[in-house]
């Protein structure tokens, strides 16, 4: 090892080889059988349970936990997957602390919720590790539907449509399927190539063809899809990123956090991913935390997450904030970037402190920065298409856009949080509406 955390600049291999495996290991290791039984025993099997209400996909959580407790984890998995075909990924990446586990009555009672996310993973892993796909296709309907985007929304929609007997062609611009599951989530949240394994498992339903390298645009116009298919579902995510908006930000080392996260996920070995000694992440959401934590895990000496408001306003959950600080990330609040210093490459970034009213205080601070990772939001990239609601595609509750025969869901569509689980729910619900529309069962 020739580099370490003190090496100035942006370099790869700050840690010794073995350390990377530990650093990027599963954030929550899988529950062992007895651990799962003990955790499942804590569920009160609530009536009309608050956790179900809190789940965007309405998984019957008390039922699946009881199925685990009674020694039938595969039945539990089927309960989960019948509502949420990506229940395995959601078990890993859902911010359960703000969803089901926040709603858990034992959180109210003791501040210690039932470990719903980890139990969900226990069940889905149990089934999927056997390669079993518990759903069967209905008789063919003769209809073919185009899905654009092989992320959580698109694949959820595709699976449900395939299960209902339709044929589905999924178009995706990336070389791999999975969308943000594959490109946008911290490595330690989905280890062991799970994103691809889940896609392969999901496609076992049959009737789904995935075509890579095909993005919506000149080569794949929406009008063409509308003409060629019985229906179209758009699950195209948010392909654009918000820029820092500073005149002198065009310096080496100023990166989009989503690209950093994606490059790290796709790197065969984390040891080959260069990282600065001093890293500053700008933003307050999940992407900012994922980037900051991973910068630290790669061996950066100083990582600062700078956010323009107070911690209570951050989109990242308290759990995520605490995860960041526990890994050694410093969270700096009430700081708005005003200038990037450096000659060619970034050297420092200067902030002005602002009050809760976002008014400048006149006080500034400079932080050393070999890298600035920008995570201040993503935007829809769609030139022409359905009407927008604000910056997203306007959709009805069942996912219909302003264009006849075109549905949309996931991060690109209005309504709901930008979460994997929300995208899965929207894809599923759109599929049900497409099915009802095509089959005349409205």
């Amino acid at each position, binding site marked *: 090892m020739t580099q370490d955390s003190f090496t100035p600049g942006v370099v790869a291999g700050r840690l010794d080889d073995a350390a990377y495996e530990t650093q990027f290991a599963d954030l929550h290791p899988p529950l062992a059988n*007895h651990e799962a*039984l*003990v955790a499942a*025993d*804590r569920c*009160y*099997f*609530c*009536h*009309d*349970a*608050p956790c179900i209400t809190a789940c965007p996909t309405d998984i019957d959580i008390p039922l699946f936990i009881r199925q685990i407790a009674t020694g039938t984890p595969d039945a539990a998995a089927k309960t989960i997957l019948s509502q949420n075909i990506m229940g395995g990924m959601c078990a890993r990446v859902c911010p359960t602390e703000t969803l089901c586990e926040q709603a858990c*009555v*034992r959180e*109210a*009672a003791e501040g210690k919720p039932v470990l719903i996310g980890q139990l969900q993973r226990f069940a889905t892993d149990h089934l999927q590790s056997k390669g079993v796909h518990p759903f069967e296709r209905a008789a063919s309907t003769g209809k073919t539907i185009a899905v654009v985007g092989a992320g959580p929304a698109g694949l959820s929609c595709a699976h449900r449509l395939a299960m209902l007997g339709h044929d589905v062609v999924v178009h995706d611009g990336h070389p791999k399927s999975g969308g943000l599951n594959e490109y946008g989530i911290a490595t330690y949240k989905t280890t062991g190539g799970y994103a691809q394994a889940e896609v392969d498992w999901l496609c076992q339903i049959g009737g789904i063809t995935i075509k890579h390298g095909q993005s919506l645009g000149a080569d794949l116009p929406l009008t063409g899809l509308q003409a060629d298919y019985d229906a179209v579902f758009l699950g195209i995510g948010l392909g654009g990123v918000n820029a820092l908006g500073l005149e002198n930000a065009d310096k080496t080392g100023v990166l989009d956090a989503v690209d950093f996260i994606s490059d790290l996920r796709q790197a065969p070995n984390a040891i080959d991913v260069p990282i600065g000694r001093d890293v500053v992440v700008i933003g307050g959401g999940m992407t900012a935390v994922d980037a900051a934590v991973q910068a630290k895990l790669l061996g950066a000496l100083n990582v600062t997450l700078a956010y323009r408001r107070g911690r209570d306003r951050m989109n990242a959950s308290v759990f995520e904030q605490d995860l960041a600080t526990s890994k050694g990330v410093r969270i700096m609040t009430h700081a708005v970037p005003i200038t990037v210093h450096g000659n060619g490459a970034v050297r420092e970034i200067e902030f002005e402190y602002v009050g809760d009213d976002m008014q400048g205080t006149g006080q500034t601070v400079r932080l050393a920065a070999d890298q600035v990772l920008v995570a201040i939001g993503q935007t829809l990239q769609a030139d022409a298409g359905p009407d927008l609601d604000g910056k997203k595609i306007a959709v009805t509750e069942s996912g219909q856009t302003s264009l006849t025969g075109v549905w949309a869901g996931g991060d690109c569509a209005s309504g709901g949080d930008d979460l994997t689980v929300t995208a899965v729910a929207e894809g599923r619900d759109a599929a049900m509406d497409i099915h009802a529309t095509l089959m005349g069962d409205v």
Partner: protein
Amino acid sequence: MADLTTDFIGIKSPNPFWLASAPPTDKEYNVRRAFEAGWGGVVWKTLGEEGPPVVNVNGPRYGAIYGADRRLLGLNNIELITDRSLETNLEEITRVKADYPNHAVIVSIMVPCEEEAWKAILPRVEATGADGIELNFGCPHGMSERGMGAAVGQVPEYIEMVTRWCKQYYSKPVIVKLTPNITDVRKPAAAARRGGADAVSLINTINSITSVNLDTMSPEPSIDGKGTHGGYCGPAVKPIAMSMVSEIARFPETAGLPISGIGGITTWRDAAEFMTLGCGNVQVCTAAMTYGFKVVQEMISGLSDWMDEKGHTSVNDFMGQAVPNTTDWQYLNLNYIAKAKINQDDCIKCGRCFAACEDTSHQAISMSADRVFEVIDAECVACNLCVNVCPVEDCITMEQVAAGQTDPRTGRTVDPDYANWTTHPNNPSATAAE
């Protein structure tokens, strides 16, 4: 600190916690360690008659029922009486008693229902210096097939006959251990008393099959693919045991007969409860088999602290205190009216009370859109199911409706006077209240 020393039918022990006749008391090594750990007495594992000892199975002897986190709630066993020679046991009993003169050493005995058999063994047991004997009329498996154990305990005439022999050929106290595998436990208890027993002990284990292996279709514990019923014990049997104890304590023919309480006693509180129902001391087995001899330390400290708190200086102060309050259903006060009350500050909104009441009881709990659960007094019969299923202790309580108030369920004014079924107008055989 309260005085825990106990004088049970003249047998003194430093505390009321004895180890029951069972695997933990099968040999000198265990019993010495038990006394060192703090147990007040032991009932030595049952001795059989002279000659080749019984044999045990060489596969599993125990089966179990579990609660959360594999907490052992019920244990069943198919072990027989001691499988060591009579001579060995007698020698060990003699040595132990000599070394522990202040601890209670009782010898459990099971020999055939023949006078000669008892006449032969009793002098040899007496020679050990042990403080008394316990007649094993309870073992429900194996030995009962040979006409001993529960096979005797199920025939009151045999109990009386054997007890009489023992009182004739043995000079120290005789305790008769009763089987619960019988319709009315008062009958064998009365028979024991007629035979001259100094005390009864109960319950022995309950016939049980703990589980069936759904792959092999064999009951567990399984011996080469076959199972047999065993004797059930542990925390799960405590309510059954306490009911039987209370029956004997308040039955005119057996009231006042000293009782050694047995059945799922796991904590000091269990022991105290048995004693308030009329037991002079208690015997423990499963708790020791689950956690080791050390559990007695909690039992000692817990009982002592509780006695101090209540101002009891001796176990005699509270022994039998709950017996007068144990009665027949027909004497319960039907003019006592209560309603469930949900403390909204403590409620965690799980809705279990609602599900239980709505689905299986009286539809007496309402649920609002924002999950506020409230009792509908006009429907509540005070059944207590909501209290039982609520995971939060004391969140739901039963509140008495004061006399003079109107019960919204019946529209009637609550009567301050006691009235029971025997005088109720709906009772066809009611006798008019005077």
